[in-house]
């Protein structure tokens, strides 16, 4: 953490005691003070993000009786899996967790398969209507999900895929497509045309050049887009609730069943919702921070 906050002054430049006495130290003191303030700011922001997570996790792993105690202990003193265990054992939770994962990865695959070629075309080719196409992409997101979902439900009912994970995958894939396209397009722009041409000269067909050279170089962008897609799908409740009855995704299930549940279960539900998304981001982070140690040049 400290290293990334370094303001660029090399470590060894701080004057030693033996130097000339008449050095103006005020700028150095200012520099150090600013650095300390930045550190403090970072800590504050981190706490702001992490504290709720901690409290939810703590409550999820505390027994019901301990949770009702006063004053509430903020340290993990008496951990128990009673709450989370009961939550996971309740009807429909594990199944909906499975549904959520299927929908999340399904939407991810769908939006990548459709979105990456579109992004490549946007990045590489000049074509008529390129700007309006880009604008049009964002219009998908301008419509409220409820407005989209009701006619979709009608459509899926007549197509016979209502109340299936496919229906939700299609919805989430479509919702994620604009971000997937725009994010990966911006990364494709940064992959030099020269490198692609070199691949062509050295024996690649256009498809091979894409697979062997362009796609690997664009991986960070594809990873970022996939995080967006997965988290979007994982958190999306409204559309998923409208398009399914029995095959609910986790948030939809939690929303409908936990409204009447005791407080402790809500914490457990919250924890179960947060963890998979966090895990996914942690895994994808590896691809986000470019694996060759530099950004693309």
């Amino acid at each position, binding site marked *: 953490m400290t290293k990334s906050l370094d303001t660029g002054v090399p470590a060894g430049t701080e004057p030693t005691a033996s130097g000339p006495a008449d050095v103006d130290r005020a700028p150095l003191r200012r520099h150090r003070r600013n650095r300390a303030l930045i550190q403090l700011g970072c800590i504050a922001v981190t706490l702001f993000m992490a504290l709720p997570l901690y409290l939810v996790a703590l409550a999820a792993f505390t027994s019901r009786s301990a949770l009702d105690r006063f004053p509430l202990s903020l340290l993990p003193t008496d951990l128990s899996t009673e709450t989370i265990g009961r939550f996971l054992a309740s009807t429909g939770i594990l199944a909906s967790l499975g549904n959520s994962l299927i929908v999340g990865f399904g939407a991810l695959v769908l939006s990548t398969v459709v979105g990456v070629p579109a992004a490549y075309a946007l990045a590489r080719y000049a074509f008529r209507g390129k700007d309006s196409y880009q604008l049009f992409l964002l219009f998908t997101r301008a419509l409220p999900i409820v407005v989209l979902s009701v006619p979709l439900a009608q459509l899926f009912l007549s197509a016979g895929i209502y109340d299936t994970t496919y229906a939700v995958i299609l919805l989430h894939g479509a919702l994620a497509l604009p971000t997937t396209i725009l994010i990966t397009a911006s990364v494709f722009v940064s992959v030099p045309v020269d490198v692609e041409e*070199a691949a*062509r000269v050295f024996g*690649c067909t256009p498809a091979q050049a894409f697979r062997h050279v362009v796609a690997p170089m664009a991986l960070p962008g594809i990873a970022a887009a996939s995080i967006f897609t997965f988290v979007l799908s994982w958190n999306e409740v409204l559309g998923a609730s409208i398009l399914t009855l029995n095959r609910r995704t986790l948030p939809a299930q939690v929303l409908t069943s936990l409204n009447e549940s005791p407080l402790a279960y809500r914490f457990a539900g919250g924890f179960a919702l947060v963890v998979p998304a966090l895990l996914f981001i942690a895994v994808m982070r590896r691809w986000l921070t470019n694996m060759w140690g530099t950004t693309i040049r």
Partner: protein
Amino acid sequence: MAEIRMEGLVKTYPGGTERATDDVSLDVADGEFVVLLGPSGCGKTTLLRMLAGLEFPDAGKITIGGEDVTYRAPQDRNLSMVFQSYAVFPHRTVRANIGFGLAMRKVPAAQIAQKVAWAAELLQLTPYLDRYPAKLSGGQRQRVAVARAIVMDADVLLMDEPLSNLDALLRLSFRAELKKIVQDLGTTTVYVTHDQGEALSLGDRVAVMRTGRIVQLGDPLEVYDRPADTFVGGFLGSPPMNFLPATVHDGQLSVAGHARPAPAHLQGHSGDLVVGVRAEHIGISGINDTDGTNGIEARVDVVEPTGSAVLLTTSVGAGPGPAVLKVSAPPTFRARPGDTVRLDLAPDALRYYDAETQLALEP
């Protein structure tokens, strides 16, 4: 190994009005090193890209080794290329970069390893084989790009300003190294550059291009000594060739107010022309020296010592407005701004150009 034949290549970029290459024809013999030289926008890179298959010509024909490749995809032409920006693959190690082309051709792994080792040895990259390009300096990256190109055993080697991103010192040392490598390989090579020094030092032949056409094609010294027009003379050489207005009248050539008998091939000529002379072909002497009495008087404006010579910017006063002459004097020559010197334009160092067409008037 193969010869290249380009016939009547025309290319206009979409949206452009000017022809990027305008009916260019050029033959490159098997094993020859040809340099395409010209200022930016002259069409030299377009010509190279058409050779590589990265652009298709609007008209014309390209054959390599007797085969018509005009509209073939790059990967079907058996050529390799060094790019100006290096274009090494950042997500592959140096080893994988060099072996990339061979791997794409499905050459057995053992053979690839052998070729990569050979090329790495030749370009002093052996210690870096397992590094990623991001960990290399610019010069090393360019070596990777060259190694990647030479392992291919391609018919034709194309180079697009491969040295222009290197710093001056490195450029000079790598230039000699590159020349030796290409000489030893004996591959037909087309090299694009805007640097006249590179062109003169590397090429078996130099093709000077301007506005989409080849204006002069010849071996480096011929192009340097006998520029086909004033553009070539002004583009090649550092400093570029000097040009002075002159007239021929009654068999007398008058340059900068100084008359002398015109050379034989200009005897029939009458009227204005332009005289070109290289800075190092101008004799110079102090105004009081006795041996330079028949020279032109000139005033020294700027003195620039370059170490190996002293570069003088002089103005010759006669005529409407002073003509400026750059003179390369021996390093021992001493002069100060404001001094008057005598310049001796030796007859065999002068080149004559038509005042209107700017084309050379050769015997």
